[in-house]
């Protein structure tokens, strides 16, 4: 942070239809929101100066996020409520910033700090009762490891580490919801809907994933406490 720069951390949601955007599309949209808001954003130095802004862990296309974060550096101090007000007014409702605070330059970046994510995976289909889904999930989780092929890469997740909390299944209208908490690591993080899809397939349960929402992204303190970035 150059002298006279202020690091504003902003929480926003990526919900509704906008969950179909890719991470890069979200990044561009948020930068445009910041410009529309007229915030005094700082520019990076170098060959082609651009807005100084940093984002938390990416969300895949199709996955919604209720508590996502970005840091934007400002050249002038602006009241938090004022900044938030103009940001929200300049954002589509489904991508609206809703909380902010200034953070110190010493604090680690969002991508480094955020290691815990909570998800909801909504399931529908003839056999999507909580009973069926729970049984299906148990058998996959009890295996202890989870293997995926993604873009030609083979990954093995140690579920004891990747799932710091037990996945829970609850009722919803026309189906059920699985609550999954995932620990993100250097080798990437487990995509919860893959776990659920595999469970349904393995147990031959006639049900499909309707949509996935990341409900929280959290920082794990050295004491092992999970806190929100803002």
């Amino acid at each position: 942070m150059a002298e006279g720069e202020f690091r504003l951390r902003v929480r926003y949601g990526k919900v509704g239809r906008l969950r179909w955007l890719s991470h890069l599309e979200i990044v561009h949209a948020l930068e445009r929101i910041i410009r529309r808001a007229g915030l005094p954003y700082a520019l990076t130095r170098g060959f082609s100066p651009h807005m100084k802004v940093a984002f938390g862990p990416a969300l895949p296309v199709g996955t919604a996020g209720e508590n996502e974060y970005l840091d934007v550096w400002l050249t002038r101090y602006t009241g938090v409520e004022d900044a938030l007000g103009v940001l929200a007014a300049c954002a589509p409702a489904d991508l609206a910033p809703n909380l902010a605070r200034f953070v110190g330059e010493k604090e680690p970046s969002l991508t480094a700090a955020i290691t815990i994510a909570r998800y909801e995976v909504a399931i529908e289909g003839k056999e999507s009762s909580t009973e069926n889904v729970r049984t299906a999930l148990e058998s996959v989780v009890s295996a202890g490891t989870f293997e995926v092929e993604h873009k030609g890469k083979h990954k093995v997740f140690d579920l004891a580490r990747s799932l710091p909390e037990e996945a829970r299944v609850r009722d919803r209208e026309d189906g059920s919801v699985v609550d999954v908490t995932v620990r993100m690591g250097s080798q990437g993080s487990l995509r919860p809907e893959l776990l659920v899809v595999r469970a349904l397939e393995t147990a031959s349960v006639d049900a499909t994933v309707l949509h996935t929402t990341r409900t929280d992204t959290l920082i794990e303190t050295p004491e092992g406490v999970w806190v929100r970035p803002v």
Partner: protein
Amino acid sequence: MTNGGLWPQVERLLASVERPARYIDREWNAVHQPGADYRAALVYPDTYEIGQANQAIAILYATLNGLPAVVAERAYLPWLDMSTAMRDAGVPLFSLESCTALSEFDLIGITVPYELTYSNILEVLDLAGLPIRASERTEAHPLVIGGGPSAFNPEPFAPFFDAVLVGEGEEAVADIVAAHRAAKQSGLDRAATLMALSAVPGVYVPALYRPEYDADGAFIGVSAVPGAPDVVTKRVLADLDAHRPPTAPIVPFMDVVHDRFGVEVLRGCTRGCRFCQAGMVYRPVRERSADPIVRDVLAGLACTGYDEVSLTSLSTTDHSQLEEVLRRLQRRLEGTGVSVSLPSLRVDAFGVEMARLVSAGGKKSGLTLAPEAGTQRMRDVINKNVTEEDLLGSVQRAFEAGWRRVKLYFMIGLPTETDDDVRGIGELVGRVFRVAREATPPAQRGGLRVAVSVSTFVPKAQTPFQWDAQLPLEEVRRRQSVLRESMPRKGVELHWHDSDVSFLEGVMARGGREVADVIEAAWRDGATFDAWTERFNPSRWAAAFEACGIEPASIANRERTPAEPLPWDHISAGVSKRYLLRERERALTGELTPDCSFESCAGCDVCQDLGVDIVLGGVARG
């Protein structure tokens, strides 16, 4: 079913298609007006990322949404994965804003940007569940109206449209909507509605015109039914400043072409290049004045959040107040990281000076210059008022100022071209390369690039070359090899425009109504997205011509006599045939015609016939 009924069905398809952002709406500045009682869908017949930035649609969207009780929504042609999924699931083509089936609208306006999108028009109509031919539509169907650059020879696609607007849409769309509403209110049937529409200036209703042939089957002209105008003359705005362009355009989420805020600074171009259809059909030049341009740029940036603004037109560096506009914008945008871009540059000192002004302090993207031909003789034939000294001087100044890349546009196959002219391109590129090298410090010469893009000349309707033959394919290929041999290899990247594509463009550009059967046959055989290299299939088109008994070479590769009736003679851009013929003669003698915006009137007649004037800096020249 109005008000978004289709979204749940559409959303179910998104997980399995590429780039769902094409289909979701909710962009900043999109207009939602569920209550309106007249509904128009504006369609660009290609994917979202190609069509989103189209300024004509942006203007019509803003204009229509500003009319009382009228709503305009957008639609694009879904990519193949999505259209297949939609057909499988029984989901018709829908508008983005309210996710309503296109068939529920009162009017479907389809812009026709380019010859290779003709097959996509049929795909749009079919996916919308409409009969592709206007003659098969009933009272239950929306009116389907076309418009755009291709309207100056609408015959190849005429049977697919109920009407085609010729010329500029700002004022005409309101007239069209008013005429359609009045027709609905008086309970007119489709035929009577079409007749009423044909009374709107600039509106061409194909069903009221018939191509006629003599006993030998030769085309002898198009005749209008009684009551319809014999000639449909283009609409033109006298004053662009009177029509504020949209300053709140839609901001896309996905990466699109021209992903920036565009402000049109002038319309038309009277440099008079003889091959250029846009230069002939968008006359006269009408500049907007500096104040509203600067105001609109700042207002537009503030409400879109773009980090780039483009000053658009056919020839932005011709604007008489450009320097002032750029200096003012630079002052206002300092420290914001927002850049200004100019889409086309003059091949002279002024052009390079302006390029320097827009990239001051920022990043220097490549410089694009269009000498078009390799020899002075050839440049005189096409009336490209540019000398080799201009070009080399510009390149030298640009490379001295820090540019390391230049892109040059050329054409082969222009009328009267010889092998010497073709070789002249390679030689000129060699001299450009040497000048660029000389002007570059030795340590940086490794990064120096000259990119050369060569297309095949396609004669276009409404130009002085509309009578000329396009080169046959074999001859194009021979000249390409002549060019390849004369082109320096080192540091030069050579790029060709596909000659099969140019051939089809040539047939579509000057074909008559009979070509519509070919378009339909090719589309039934699977032709869509022909402008996408990986989708274009020349043998599919050859088979379609064969099946319809049409010899495409007789359209593209045949010279016409001035006396011969042309399929677009009933469409007027306001430029007289007399002028086009005179320009053609001057081409053959290599005589230049100066730019009428700065020198005297060249007598194209558009100002007199349409009652408009050249407007410079917002002031009519009178």
